[in-house]
């Protein structure tokens, strides 16, 4: 079941209805059961894997906490899990990733606690590596052995004929995302945050269906209080939830999927590409992946809002970033902050001099690349991002010593040029990301800088209507946002008949005629634009 399927459009209202009819433990159980139904409708056996990993991580976290000194375990070291805290306290603003606290926990049995942490990390990362990287490792070992074989004459025949068997296993859907959450959970508990004592709360954190398959990557300190005290299902919340869901669905079905069909061909060929086609394919993919992934996140966040839970934002108009550093703070934000907290900072962060900082940045982005998949083009993609970040840091240092240049860069023209330059960098590096391998990616680059050839993709692009539908999405997005934030202004002109006469000024009504009209328009445009066959979300494969 995927968010853009008809089944989900039935599943979600049923779950939302039951969720608000229940309270306490039954509601929690419903959340867990619904999430497992959602997950296991794909391949049930991996539901068992997820359940096992949930049980093991929960047990280890309790074990780690029990190893603490009594005073330490009683301390409320994590602000997020204080019993008196309500969801409203933590949900007024979209949660922003915070820097991790230093290790504050003291242990009676430090070695045991550390051992449990290591076991947990090994199990989680091991499961991820097994499913994601085992064949990559085997293939590269085979290649290395075959390359070395001629150098060892006495074993040449054996080594040349060595065929290491590949592992036949499908990648469990969303494994990266729940492994990242488990790693975060165990690490933070080990550092001193309180563990989640309720198994069902932890299970809900692990499998929560709106963020289960492709994030955003949640922080349990942020999520558990919201789960305990969800926001009341008021009109503004329903409006925000449904608007977000519709925006996400629009982006995914009406923009990302048609674009995917248009640009598929240039990425699948090693024949020379014309310059315009290469650029259309490169720009097209960045727009496609943005609409696809941010569309998924919007649908997930919208679904979660209907359950009274505000998930962290994952995208903040990243394609308008002025530099690559800002881009990574606005693109897949939950992954960026996770990498910062659990890779970059443990590596030393920016603490030990500029070169170590550069090294850490590079390693972090290569890890980011490898996370996307066990192939060399993802590693190259990560490396280019790392180099981009390092160059940007150096550029910032140059600017510090040149105030006039800094001033010029901060001007309007400078900002526009910076956005343009950054976008071109992102587009080119993401073309490597999209290509099936490095030669295909380099072929696209060669086309992009050949400065010749005819634009054969213009015609299908225009014929698909995606440009017009893109403009329609912009209007829909702005209208729904305006309706959400300026209800009283709208009420002056279009008052919902259901609105009571004695209603407080500014009180919003869900069934506003204009809002329903925008939903109708969006729904028809989505049906008109979407391809006949559903296209899987890009990030499902990661």
């Amino acid at each position, binding site marked *: 079941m995927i968010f853009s399927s008809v089944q989900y459009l039935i599943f979600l209202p*049923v779950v939302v209805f039951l969720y608000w009819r229940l309270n306490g433990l039954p509601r929690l159980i419903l959340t867990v059961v619904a999430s497992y139904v959602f997950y296991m409708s794909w391949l049930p056996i991996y539901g068992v894997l997820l359940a096992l990993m949930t049980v093991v991580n929960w047990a280890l976290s309790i074990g780690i906490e029990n190893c603490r000194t009594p005073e330490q375990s009683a301390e409320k070291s994590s602000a997020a899990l204080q019993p008196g805290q309500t969801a409203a306290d933590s949900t007024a603003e979209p949660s922003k990733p915070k820097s991790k606290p230093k290790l504050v926990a003291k242990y009676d049995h430090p070695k045991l606690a550390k051992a449990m942490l290591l076991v947990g990390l090994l199990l989680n990362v091991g499961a991820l590596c097994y499913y994601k990287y085992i064949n990559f490792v085997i293939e590269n070992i085979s290649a290395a052995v075959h390359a070395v074989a001629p150098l060892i004459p006495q074993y040449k025949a054996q080594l040349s004929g060595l065929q290491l068997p590949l592992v036949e296993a499908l990648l469990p859907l969303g494994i990266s995302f729940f492994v990242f959450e488990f790693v975060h959970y165990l690490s933070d508990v080990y550092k001193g945050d309180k563990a989640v004592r309720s198994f069902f709360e932890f299970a809900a954190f692990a499998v929560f269906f709106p963020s289960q398959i492709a994030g955003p990557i949640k922080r349990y300190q942020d999520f558990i209080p919201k789960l305990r005290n969800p926001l009341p299902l008021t009109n503004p919340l329903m409006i925000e939830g449904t608007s977000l869901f519709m925006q996400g669905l629009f982006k995914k079905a009406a923009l990302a999927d048609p674009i995917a069909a248009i640009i598929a061909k240039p990425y699948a060929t090693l024949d020379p590409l014309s310059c315009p086609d290469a650029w259309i394919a490169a720009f097209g993919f960045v727009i496609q992946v943005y609409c696809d992934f941010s569309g998924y996140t919007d649908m997930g966040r919208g679904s979660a809002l209907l359950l009274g839970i505000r998930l962290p934002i994952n995208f903040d108009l990243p394609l308008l970033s002025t530099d690559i550093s800002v881009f990574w703070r606005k693109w897949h934000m939950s992954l960026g902050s996770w990498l910062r907290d659990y890779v970059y900072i443990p590596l030393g962060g920016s603490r030990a001099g500029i070169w170590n900082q550069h090294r850490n940045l590079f390693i972090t982005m290569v890890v980011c690349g490898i996370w996307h998949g066990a192939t060399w083009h993802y590693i190259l993609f990560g490396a280019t991002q790392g180099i981009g970040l390092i160059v940007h840091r150096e550029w910032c240092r140059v600017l510090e010593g040149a105030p006039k240049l800094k001033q010029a860069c901060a001007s309007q023209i400078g900002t526009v040029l910076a956005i343009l330059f950054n976008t071109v960098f992102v587009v080119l590096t993401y073309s490597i990301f999209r290509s099936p391998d490095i030669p295909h990616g380099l072929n696209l680059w060669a086309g992009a800088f050949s400065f010749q050839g005819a634009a054969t993709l213009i015609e299908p692009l225009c014929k698909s209507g995606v440009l017009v539908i893109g403009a329609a999405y912009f209007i829909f997005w702005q209208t729904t946002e305006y309706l959400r934030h300026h209800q009283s202004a709208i009420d002056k002109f279009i008052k919902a008949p259901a609105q009571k006469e004695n209603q407080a000024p500014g009180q919003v009504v869900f069934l506003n005629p204009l809002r329903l009209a925008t939903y109708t328009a969006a729904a028809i445009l989505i049906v008109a634009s979407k391809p006949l066959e559903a296209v899987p979300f890009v990030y499902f494969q990661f």
Partner: protein
Amino acid sequence: MTTNLAAATVETDKEVELIVPREFKQPWFKRLLPYIAWQVVALLAVEATLAFAGLGEEELFQLDPEIGTVHMTNKSITWRKEGYARSYLHSNGLRESGITEAKPAGVYRIVLLGDSQVEGIQVALEDTAGQLLEKRLTKILGRPVQVLNFGVSGYSTVQEFLLMKREVFKYSPDMVLMGYDSRDMFENWSAPDAAISNLRPYALKLPKQPVLVDSGPVKAFMKSPRGKFLNSIAWLRANSRIWGLISAYETEASSHNEAYKAIIGFFISPVKVTKQFREDAAKKDYWPNVGAQIFKATIGSIQMPNWQYTKPVAAVKVAVKQDLSKEAEEAQKQTDLAGKQAAFDKRKAALEEQAKVEASNKTFIGVITNTMEALLQEFKKETANHNCKFVVYALPSRATLAPIAGMDQPMLGVNHGSEVVIVKRQCQENEIPFIDAQRAATTYSDEKLNSLFYTAHLTPSGQKYVADQLDVPLAEIIRQSK
């Protein structure tokens, strides 16, 4: 409400007005008005957007009391079901532009008749076999040749005959070229269903009687609730792109959804349907059935975890792989046995099929084939009366050459190959030129065959293949007919 009640105790004469909030005092239709108005605005905005984007136009038939359906006129079509093509149906219902009824001097005019395979709405006009033939024949014959494509989706031979009599001869064709597609002969005798492309008159040839062509089923359909409904929304069907989007769903619902049928029936004959509903609702099992249907269509459609597939994935993949390797092995064996053996088998199968069909001449198939032959004779007679040549060709059929799941099954044991054999024999016996455009493809590899077809209809490669089969034989026929 509290404020209103407090006020009511002070101003007794306004009690009623104050206790009942104003919005509930309004009649329901007034309360509904802003919603309807804004929905209309939204729909108009969507229509404009779709028009600008060129999306959502897949409605191309208008109802015709004689033939069943004909092409709409002055209508742009964007076809996305198979392939992707934009077309414009001009005021004469043809895709070709600049066609006048008066034939330009010196032009040899060919009219194509047939169903969707001839119509070729799935591909751009310039990629259709008709347009390719026009260019090639002009080149081969050294004189201007014009090809007018009168193909219409879903047409049977009898519909093609009626269309020819009513429209085609206005254009003074020199040749009528009829494409025979799978099931055409059976469609001369088929009951209408919800899909209007299946709305057809019938033809019947009984021994010692002239062939009967009757539009009775079409006229009956026009009087049915669905016929009336479609006629009542004719303007919407012709002009709305939103309707173009929902048309396919509407047709599907008209076939299978009882609730939808009831709603349509209610709009057409409210009194009758209400009476029927009262009677049905009084029955014991009516509401449980309704509940069961609603459940099945909503919650019941959610895919639950299927434990049947819980065995280790690796094992599943290995099993699939083994199956695939077995299939590959089998395919290889089949390839090895190709050549003479395959040709022999095919010939043998064709003879067997022919024998099978001939043996059942006294049955239903006999009537169908006799009707087909009678229609061919009528075609020949009518075209001769208008000084034009009549030629038949057999179209390639995916169901026969490269079948995929859900394709047309053989009708009463007769497949397209057998139909072609029958039509060919009938043409020979009646001295009608016949070109078998399917035969060459029977030797093609699977890959090549798949490149000829989308799900069922011809791709640009398929259209080119048809033109390849027809150009030289047609040029020869034209030369001989001079």
